[in-house]
């Protein structure tokens, strides 16, 4: 390929939040702002800009220095290359491909395995298609990245366990109650993490949320957010039997719920199980509560331990994911090589000759064994000549384009796809799927699968 693939970017590991904010490329159009032009060295670009990551993927003419992209970036954000450069990483060629696949697989995210990044990458790609800045190479790269991201999620357990305190609590609640459509949650205190856990519970389909707080107006405000009900703090023990999941996060200096308080509550509930999540420090709930039948208590340390274990599991799964990325990068390298004209001509003629040979064999079989050798030879010549003549004009067209424009990539790619020279399996519903493209989210909030990126102690990639 007579062009170079660049990936220039910064992320949560290389830059602080101030730099990330200053050099965000939200709503930036690389064509309108002069990075991608019909005559300039950069022919394609995709900009990815999220809370934790800003990256420019670009296809440039051979010999184009990456500084061209860096200068565009600094200028687009009203900053300077001098400020930006120390925080930036630059990947070229297959390293860039590998990095894109790593990002799509969420291995480079702050919370490894979080699902949001793939959606954000799709958003970025959609923008580039709208602005007409993505062509053969980046089209292929991004599509491949989506496939790799999906493959990693399905073939490894990288995203199978909760890695945030609040989501781990909800996962445990599911392990106790199963479908939570009949369960009621009670928030005691209105801490941020309790609120996040409640949000996860609502997403998991909990029937109702009750909120009790020393300041009743705050309880009302929070309950309103979940379409729930506020209850007065002094009514707490009386209303406790209504709750299946209790999330406590008050600022009390001593335990507010003791085992002896729970016994009559359980009786009133006919022993239906209760799950206490104590995320207050110091703790709100006496640890003895866990010893009661049908009562389960997890405090902040227990939940942290669950999260640590799950993170360790994700790190193990990352090794498998890296192997997938390596193999996909190698395949992409083959495709990039094929964008040169010569291998495409060879593949095209080989395919044609192969078809010809197969058809000839069928015809010879039909004509029988008594066919004179000279007739057989003539037929062979006819087939070869026919194949070469048929492909003559398409090959000439590709050669002309290469000579005239110096970058016939998209024609070569079209030819390869038209004749399926890469022997890709095309799904029968490929066309239908293209028609039904669903708009993607652009926010940095709760992931669609109830993931964990929204916890206060975390962020997304």
């Amino acid at each position, binding site marked *: 390929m007579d062009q170079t693939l660049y990936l220039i970017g910064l992320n949560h590991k290389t830059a602080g939040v101030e730099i990330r904010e200053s050099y965000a490329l939200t709503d930036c159009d690389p064509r309108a702002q002069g990075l991608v032009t019909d005559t300039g060295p950069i022919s394609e670009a995709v900009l990815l800009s999220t809370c934790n990551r800003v990256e420019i993927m670009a296809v440039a003419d051979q010999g184009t220095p990456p500084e061209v992209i860096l200068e565009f970036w600094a200028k687009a954000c009203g900053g300077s290359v001098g400020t930006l450069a120390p925080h930036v990483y630059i990947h070229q060629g297959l390293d860039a491909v590998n990095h894109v696949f790593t990002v799509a697989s969420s291995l480079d995210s702050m919370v490894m395995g979080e699902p949001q990044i793939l959606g954000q990458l799709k958003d970025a790609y959609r923008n580039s298609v709208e602005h007409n800045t993505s062509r053969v190479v980046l089209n292929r790269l991004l599509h491949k990245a989506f496939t790799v991201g999906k493959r990693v999620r399905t073939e490894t357990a990288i995203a199978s366990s909760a890695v945030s305190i609040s989501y781990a609590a909800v996962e445990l609640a599911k*392990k106790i109650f199963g479908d939570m459509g009949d369960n009621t949650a009670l928030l005691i205190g209105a801490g941020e993490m309790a609120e996040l856990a409640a949000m996860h519970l609502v997403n998991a389909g909990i029937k109702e949320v009750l909120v009790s707080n020393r300041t009743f107006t705050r309880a009302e405000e929070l309950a309103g957010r979940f379409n729930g009900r506020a209850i007065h703090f002094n009514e707490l023990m009386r209303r406790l039997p209504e709750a299946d999941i209790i999330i406590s996060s008050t600022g009390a200096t001593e335990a507010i719920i003791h085992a002896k308080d729970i016994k009559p509550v359980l009786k009133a509930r006919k022993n239906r199980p209760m799950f206490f999540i104590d995320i207050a420090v110091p703790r709100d709930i006496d640890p003895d509560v866990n010893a009661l039948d049908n009562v*389960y208590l997890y405090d902040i340390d227990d939940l942290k331990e669950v999260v640590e274990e799950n993170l360790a599991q994700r790190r193990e799964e990352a090794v498998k994911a890296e192997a997938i990325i390596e193999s996909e990068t190698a395949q992409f390298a083959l495709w990039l090589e094929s964008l040169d004209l010569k291998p495409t001509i060879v593949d095209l003629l080989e395919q044609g000759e192969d078809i010809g040979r197969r058809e000839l064999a069928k015809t010879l079989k039909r004509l029988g064994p008594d066919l004179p050798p000279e007739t057989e030879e003539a037929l062979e010549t006819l087939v070869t000549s026919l194949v070469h003549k048929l492909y003559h004009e398409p090959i000439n067209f590709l050669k002309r384009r290469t000579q005239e424009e110096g970058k016939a990539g998209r024609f070569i790619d079209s030819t390869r796809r038209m004749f399926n020279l890469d022997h890709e399996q095309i799904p029968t519903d490929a066309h239908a799927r293209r028609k039904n493209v669903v708009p993607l989210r652009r926010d940095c909030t709760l992931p669609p699968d109830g993931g964990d990126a929204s916890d206060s102690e975390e962020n997304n990639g």
Partner: protein
Amino acid sequence: MEFVNLIEIAVVALYLSGAALYPAGMLGRKPMLMRLAGLTAGGGFILHTLRIALMFASTKHMTFTQGGLYFSLMAWVVLLVFFTISWRKKLEFMALAASPLALLLYLSSIALPDSVVKMPDNLSGLFFTLHIGSLFVSISLLAMAFAAGALFLHIEKKIKTKEKLAGFRKDLPSLNTFDLANKWAVNWGFPLYSVGLLAGFVWGRFTWGKLLTWDPKEIVSLLIWMLYAFLFHQRLAQGWRGGKAAKLAMLVFIFSIASLVGVNFLTQSHHNF
């Protein structure tokens, strides 16, 4: 080798596959193996049905009291109950108990000698059938309650002690599901056990002229019934659930099996094989 023997070998092979593949699939988290286990157990069940039909067709004076047929029917009912539960309640994990139990019972049925005793006549036959049928279904339900109870206790211990739920444990249903399965099996099992016992006493009245003959099996069965009644009452009236109910259901099942094997084989009773 006779056709019937071939069927027996095939049933054992299929039940064995079912009993081995389900836990293997669960431990290895391979749903395909679990589906295969269901298919092999299903195949075995069909052949087993054929085997029982052939047995009835070939012997005019067959009776349920012969050991081989008794155990064979028991294995068949265990699987029938399991398939019904899987289909109606989506409790496939019960295969953990059903498949090995069916295999064990079927192997026992082959090992036991065939002694033909005359089938009871008329009204006596009806009560006898009710006695055996109800008790078999009830014991099969107890087996399901045992499996659900054991899994409940295992997972509950993990949650209580804050141990990590890894591997197949992670894929298991919730505690609530195990408890509901246990409750469901007990709520259906106890009335059936009661009907089975009552029908047995009525049959005894027809056969021996009195309701209660103080046979060891009768006494043990009455004791099990009392324990079972206590569990049923505590679940319904006192709202027992979770670990306590699971443990008691498991105990009732263990006593039932002990009674089935111990009393029927080791004591002098009407129920000897």
